[in-house]
């Protein structure tokens, strides 16, 4: 057996109940590494084009990586993928916590779920064995209740549980998968895929570690280096002290805190929802992920009338902005409660917040009225109305049933010009980063194979100063945040390959440079991979794997019919910010379109945004050439 991975994949067919173990060659791991790489590899090769995401033919993949399970901070993320019911694109989403190492230790690197069960089931994996168990009694349960019940009936309090809530069962298009109450593979509707398949949960437990690493001493040394050095970096200390909520204040001052459905970039009540405010009011503890010293995850206890259960965790920056500034809400208790509703019912907090803000704007503009909303009077800043609407969405009740389709479909159903206020790319709601103040983020939103996403490439401030870690990635010139010239495109592209690599390896982007909280450098990563596997690989080879995964995901979308017309931004980002520190700022459409074209050429993509045959051949993806261009190329 090779070091660091088991070479075994578990394939579960829910239609027949069959469970098979497949042995996979080391070569596949060399080329795809894990995570995003393996998800793209499996989905591209195994899904027929145009398959309905909510049909037995879609597949759901849980993937670890070649380094999952090493005792190194940041290496802990499980990558889950399927064709997205929200966007119709390739989709993968990552969650931190403890599930990924536990799965690897059971003896399987990857789990592939196929077909559809006739009745609710869950998958139980322990120490190299797997079985499907009945889950009728769990169907309809909130994530915490289902998780507790599963652990109790298995007599396994230490089992790690990935489960869906009622929203996934009701096929809410942005339903997510919740791990151990609080970590989420949040985006793209993977919970709905699981709900359609009638799979309530995947549960893992390892009583011994089934993999060996090549140089365990070196791995401990690398971990120790992190533990000894992270306090020297204020970005990491800030993340540890305030969590991701640290971002509220600086982004607000910068004019890039999405506010009132992206109309403006500063929120007058931002101080009330800041990291400092969270620490002073509702924070009770901080939690962490496997082997990580930073402990950035908040545990909160909100106050009357919004009492929350700390087990569900607390709101991250994205959630605070999505239900806070974006909806005009300044009550942290209400935001924490919204976070709990999302985690308990199993929906993505970003999409949910954007959908609610969209509905409020429609209401305030008179496009919809109380006749549409089942009597609900929607106003920015009205936390009670926000929570009532959220409850209707997660339960698909009344008007909530339309919003549960996501902003794109909801705007098409509503009509009356509602599309203009639906802030999404490829049907996926934009996250809480304002591209009018960070144009490289706008490029990444447009080009991301999964739709608008803030974790595709480092954000523009990362490139304003050339530091050692950027030089290691080949970025040698400083680039200003509003520049959109070839230097910016190059930086975003190289950054995209780097972050694609981190998704292949299941790594938290906050622990590695160039993130402000990042402690490790790119060269540390090479050391981790070599110490884990015994390979003698290089940063070049690893970045190529990141590039391979990105191109395969783009190729998947090209095969589905996505093209350059889909690589764009919502209209609003080409209009001026209405208020805030960057009032009047907009993205120039012509310049942006020109930048996208140049990006295509730099990446080796054609004018439709498809990877060219030459690029695919260069990456060893000859099977993708045949699929997209036929045998003639």
């Amino acid at each position, binding site marked *: 057996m090779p070091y660091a991975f088991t070479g075994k994949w578990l394939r579960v067919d829910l239609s027949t109940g069959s469970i098979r173990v497949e042995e996979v060659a080391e070569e596949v791991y060399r080329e795809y590494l894990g995570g995003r790489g393996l998800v793209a590899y499996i989905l591209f090769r195994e899904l027929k084009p145009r398959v309905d995401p909510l049909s037995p033919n879609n597949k759901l993949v849980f993937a670890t990586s070649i380094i999952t399970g090493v005792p190194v901070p940041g290496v802990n993320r499980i990558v889950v993928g399927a064709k997205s019911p929200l966007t119709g694109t390739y989709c993968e989403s990552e969650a931190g916590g403890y599930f990924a190492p536990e799965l690897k230790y059971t003896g399987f690197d990857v789990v592939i779920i196929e077909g559809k069960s006739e009745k609710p089931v869950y998958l139980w994996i322990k120490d190299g064995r797997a079985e499907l168990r009945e889950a009728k009694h769990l169907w309809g349960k909130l994530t915490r209740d289902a998780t507790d019940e599963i652990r109790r009936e298995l007599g396994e309090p230490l089992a790690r549980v990935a489960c869906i809530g009622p929203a996934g069962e009701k096929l809410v298009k942005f339903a997510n998968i919740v791990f151990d109450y609080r970590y989420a593979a949040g985006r793209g509707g993977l919970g709905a895929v699981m709900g359609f398949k009638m799979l309530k949960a995947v549960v893992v437990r390892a009583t011994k570690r089934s993999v060996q690493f090549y140089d365990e001493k070196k791995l401990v040394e690398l971990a120790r280096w992190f533990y000894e050095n992270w306090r020297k970096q204020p970005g990491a*200390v800030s993340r540890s002290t305030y969590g991701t909520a640290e971002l509220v204040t*600086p982004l607000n001052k910068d004019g890039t805190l999405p506010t009132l459905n992206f109309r403006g970039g500063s929120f007058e009540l931002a101080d009330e929802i*800041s990291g400092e405010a969270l620490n002073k009011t509702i924070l009770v503890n901080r939690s962490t992920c496997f082997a990580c010293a930073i402990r950035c995850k908040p545990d909160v206890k909100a106050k009357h009338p919004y009492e929350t259960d700390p087990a569900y965790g607390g709101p991250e920056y994205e959630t605070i902005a999505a239900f806070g500034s974006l909806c005009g809400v300044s009550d942290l208790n209400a935001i924490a409660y919204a976070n709990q509703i999302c985690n308990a019912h199993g929906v993505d907090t970003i999409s949910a917040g954007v959908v609610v803000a969209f509905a409020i704007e429609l209401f305030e503009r008179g496009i919809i009225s109380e006749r549409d909303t089942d009597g609900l009077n929607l106003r920015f800043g009205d936390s009670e109305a926000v929570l009532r609407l959220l409850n209707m969405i997660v339960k698909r009740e009344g008007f909530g049933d339309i919003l549960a389709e996501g902003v794109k479909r909801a705007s098409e159903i509503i009509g009356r010009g509602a599309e203009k206020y639906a802030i999404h790319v490829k049907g996926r709601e934009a996250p809480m980063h304002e591209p009018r103040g960070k144009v490289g983020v706008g490029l990444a939103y447009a080009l991301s194979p999964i739709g608008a996403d803030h974790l595709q490439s480092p*954000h523009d401030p990362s490139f*304003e100063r050339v530091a050692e870690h950027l030089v290691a990635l080949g970025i040698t010139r400083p680039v200003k945040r509003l520049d959109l010239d070839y230097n910016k495109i190059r930086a975003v592209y190289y950054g995209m390959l780097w972050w694609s690599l981190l998704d292949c390896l299941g790594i938290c982007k906050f622990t590695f440079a160039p993130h*402000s909280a990042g402690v490790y450098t790119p060269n540390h990563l090479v050391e981790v991979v070599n110490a884990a596997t015994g390979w003698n690989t290089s940063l070049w080879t690893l970045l190529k794997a990141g590039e391979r995964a990105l191109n395969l995901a783009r190729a998947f979308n090209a095969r589905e019919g996505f093209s350059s017309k889909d690589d764009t931004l919502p209209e609003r980002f080409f209009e001026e910010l209405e208020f805030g520190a960057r009032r009047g700022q907009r993205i120039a459409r012509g310049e942006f379109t020109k930048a996208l074209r140049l990006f295509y050429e730099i990446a080796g993509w054609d004018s439709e945004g498809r990877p060219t045959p030459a690029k695919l051949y260069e990456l060893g993806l000859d099977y993708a050439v045949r699929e997209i261009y036929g045998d003639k190329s």
Partner: protein
Amino acid sequence: MIRVKVKYIPELIKSITGTSEEEITLGEDATLRSLLETIARTHGEKLEEWIFNSKRELSGNILLVVNGEITFNLERKLQDEDTVVLTIPFNGG
């Protein structure tokens, strides 16, 4: 003498300085470097470690904004009534 307004944006830095804003009086030929030396002396070793690297250059952890413009030039001369913002180059999450 010149007076410079200094703003501390991240909560982490505010927690060390104890304030989000202060006015600092410097000599006529003051530079960004002399301002940062003054801040480091006033607010202690922790902040000093974060501002400067071992070569006494600006560390990669701190972003300086003078009158709305990002700068890395510590020898830049300061003028009366300049506003200097000390922040961390936050980049998403």
